[in-house]
């Protein structure tokens, strides 16, 4: 029985929230993102802004260059969080298993459809999801439906905005074969370049590639690449509360300007360590390893050490972190500073006793996703709660 997975992506989520609050903004080129620093990046561009070639991830400065009349609004975290959870609640009322992939994206595991009517069932689900989300929030979304997460995610942009796109079974290569490899989520500019050097330009090229040839460049990752190019992958839909236990918990922040003063850096480390410690306690974990991360210019560094006794106390984390950082940075000014606890061990019996508890954890997880989305440049504490995945 072919599986059925839906990928839901809110259309210009952050910008749409602002437009919903003030409909007069609807036709203006608008971006949401950045912080008071002016160093920020675009988190979301409204559709009128996209016509100027502005997209998320672009620096605000570049966006302003492309459209001098651009309106840039700061992110409103509580509003975004609230709305994100509302969308999630709608989706959870539709499917038994819903995975929040980010603050404005989710996967739904739908009942496997009868093969002869697979595409029609998928379409019906797509319309239903879109209708419900819009009815509950007044915001539009796009839905991609396919046999797995990878294909569903790749189908969604084909119908944006407000589209329902069903990628029929066995249509993956026919749809994406001639597209550049970078259309596959996770294949960034570096991988694209490296593949290009091997003469692999399109998804079809990659699907046909000799694993041996790839292995010399990509090592063990090469089979994943070939799988993805064949439309296989994305894993299973993991519902909130069902995630594997976290492997580390951390916070980091980007400074408005580079900072070298020890007092400032030490205070920042304390502030971040306190947040990490609170998170550890809330989830019932202690860290065996302390990790500090920092950026000098554009280069990223990290230093770590193991503790004799696992800790969930801010003082210990901060003190150990400082002991690692100070000699390593050797007086150089930092652009970013972060601290994380890794090698987590449970401090309380594991397992979710009450379903409510699982749900609460899921909600907390959604908050983390939101912070992920702000990125390092938002000057807000960026939160990471890694589950063993590469960020």
């Amino acid at each position, binding site marked *: 029985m072919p599986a059925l997975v839906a990928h839901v992506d809110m259309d210009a989520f952050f910008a749409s929230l602002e437009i919903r609050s003030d409909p007069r903004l609807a036709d203006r080129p608008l971006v949401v993102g950045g912080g008071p620093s002016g160093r920020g990046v675009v988190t979301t561009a409204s559709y009128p802004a996209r016509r100027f070639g502005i997209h998320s991830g672009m620096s605000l400065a570049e966006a302003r260059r492309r459209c001098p009349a651009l309106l840039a609004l700061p992110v409103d975290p509580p509003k975004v969080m609230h709305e994100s959870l509302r969308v999630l609640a709608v989706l959870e009322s539709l499917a038994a298993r819903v995975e929040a992939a980010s603050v404005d994206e989710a996967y739904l595991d739908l009942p496997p459809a009868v093969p002869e009517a697979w*595409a*029609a*069932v998928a379409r019906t689900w797509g319309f239903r999801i879109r209708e419900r989300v819009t009815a509950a929030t007044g915001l539009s979304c796009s839905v991609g439906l396919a046999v797995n997460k990878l294909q569903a995610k790749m189908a969604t942009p084909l119908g944006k905005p407000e589209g329902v796109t069903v990628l029929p079974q066995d249509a993956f290569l026919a749809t994406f074969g001639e597209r550049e490899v970078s259309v596959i989520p996770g294949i960034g500019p570096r991988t694209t370049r490296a593949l290009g050097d091997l003469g692999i330009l399109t998804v079809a090229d990659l699907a046909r590639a000799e694993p041996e040839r790839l292995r010399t460049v990509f090592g063990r990752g090469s089979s994943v690449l070939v799988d993805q190019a064949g439309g296989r992958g994305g894993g299973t839909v993991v519902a909130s509360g069902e995630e594997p236990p976290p492997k580390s918990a951390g916070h980091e922040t980007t400074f408005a300007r580079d900072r070298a003063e020890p007092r400032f850096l030490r205070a920042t480390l304390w502030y971040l360590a306190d947040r990490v410690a609170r998170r550890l306690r809330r989830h019932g974990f202690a860290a065996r390893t302390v990790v500090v991360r920092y950026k000098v210019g554009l280069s990223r560094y990290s230093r770590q050490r193991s503790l004799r006794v696992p800790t969930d106390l801010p003082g210990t984390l901060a003190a150990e972190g400082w002991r690692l950082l100070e000699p390593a940075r050797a007086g150089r000014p930092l652009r970013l500073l972060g601290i994380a606890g890794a090698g987590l061990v449970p401090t309380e019996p594991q397992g979710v006793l009450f379903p409510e508890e699982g749900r609460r954890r899921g909600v907390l997880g959604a908050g983390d996703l939101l912070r992920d989305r702000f990125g390092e440049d938002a000057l807000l504490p960026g939160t990471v709660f890694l589950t063993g995945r590469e960020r």
Partner: protein
Amino acid sequence: MQAPLPAGKLRMGLSGYSYDDWTGIFYPKGLAKSEYLRYYASKFGAVEINATYYRIPPARSFEAMAARTPSGFVFTAKANQDMTHARSRERSLYRGFLEAVDPLRQAGKFDGTLLQFPFGFRNEVRNRSHLAFLREQLPGMRLWAEFRHESWDRPPVLDYLRRLDIGYCAVDEPPLPGLLPPRAAVTSDAGYVRFHGRNAATWWGGGHERYDWEYTAEELSEWLDRIREMATAADHTYLFFNNCYMGRAVKSARLLGRLLGMEPELDLGLPGV
């Protein structure tokens, strides 16, 4: 006394609204036929269109129906007999149906199609495959399957419907041998119940008299738990009365509404009903 269901969970209505023998019973005497729907929509929030079963009307008829009803009012339509009884595979038939109801969809007033199958439509491979064919022909639309033959009263059928995203239509009909027994089930996001009356004597005779049945409070009370169960499982659940003979459906709807504690929402304003 159980807690009332959240508002909007139940949508009650009648199977069809245009019956001549309702004049003076439901419709005020002298009300022009063209005003029936407007009047009906002032009393009920939903209607099941039965005319589509006999003939697919042109899109402009539905356009007019959309215009005569307030926002929030919803229609469901019975599939054409060629789809469910003749099991036609003629694709133009389905295209025509989709085009006809499109004005209602555009107006946000169309909520889906009832596939009512005849007694002779048994739980067999070719009929199950016809269900899949119907789903394929009517994509993106809520569908409900109403079976008559008891061979469909099997748990795997419900699972099959779920995988087709087709809703199960629960029925109240005479307890005759071979007929589907009353059962509460939800297999898509919307529930559906049809009350046909329990007139065993006239059931097989066909004709209007089949639906000559006056429900008692006791009979309808058998459904209260089932309805609550369905309303909990579904986003919304339709309750349609088809015992339309001499306006009996109106009276039954009002009675069930009262039993469910939804009477204030269903003020039919009928003298002596």
